[in-house]
């Protein structure tokens, strides 16, 4: 088996790679969104804490 046969999926390339492509994209976006959200939450809490420190 060679790679061009593999990617051709015997004529079903659009359907097979369309499925796996969207699944991969969706999962990657979810991971990125959750991680960025975590970084943003931590940053905000850090700012809140630092301003409290200076005020008090």
């Amino acid at each position, binding site marked *: 088996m060679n790679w061009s046969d*593999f990617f051709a*999926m*015997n*004529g*079903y390339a*659009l*359907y*097979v790679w*369309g*499925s*796996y492509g*969207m*699944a991969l994209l*969706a*999962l990657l976006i*979810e*991971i990125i969104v*959750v*991680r960025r*959200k*975590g970084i943003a*939450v*931590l940053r905000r*809490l*850090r700012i*809140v*804490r630092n301003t*409290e420190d200076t005020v008090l």
Partner: protein
Amino acid sequence: MNLFKYSSPSSFYGVVGKMIPWLAWSAAILFVAGLYIGFFVAPSDTQQSEAYRIMFIHVPTSILSMFIYLVMAGYAAIGLIFNTRLSSMMASALAPTGALLTFISLWTGAFWGKPMWGTWWVWDARLTSELILMFLYFGFIALHSSIDDPRRADRASALLAIIGSVNVPIIYFSVQWWNTLHQGATVKLTGTSMHIAMQQGMYTMILAVWLYAITVSLMRVRNIILERECKAQWVSELPEIRR
């Protein structure tokens, strides 16, 4: 040992933080193994040729989309009955992942339906009830975010999740109860006609998606804990916030 020690958000936050890298790597390894078996070990199908390989992503995401809903409704119910805020936070953390897996299930189903049935979509009982599942997830998320007080939001959305869970057995048994274009279950308690390598690939991918869902939901629940407990002393004393 106190079993309830980890039911407090502060200790849960720490323990989960240590578990996430292990879970993430396990999921990644299982994805690689499952895709390897699915694409290079499992043989071509006699009827569907290579198109059947969509199964290795379609079946796991479909199963998990239903399973996560039940887990989410279970956590929401525990939060409602015992007034435990961490349970409600878990329910909120599971909803987006459940919705996403439902979307992937529908998408891959369409991309499998087109070459095999000649149509991307048909309003049969299996497909329609799975679409309703996605709207139930959306409804849960939307209802929760529309109420300002988080504990009230937990209670209202818990009720929606519990009522909506009747849809899960409807999805599962739809292929038996109605005449559907969607096929019935291939893997049954009495056995299966599937090739052993196809089974191995499918079970590995189910485990991979399962571990992925656990990992990303736990990452999300940590964000939710920090947001909702931001006034708590333990949050301001976390090393990642002190620095």
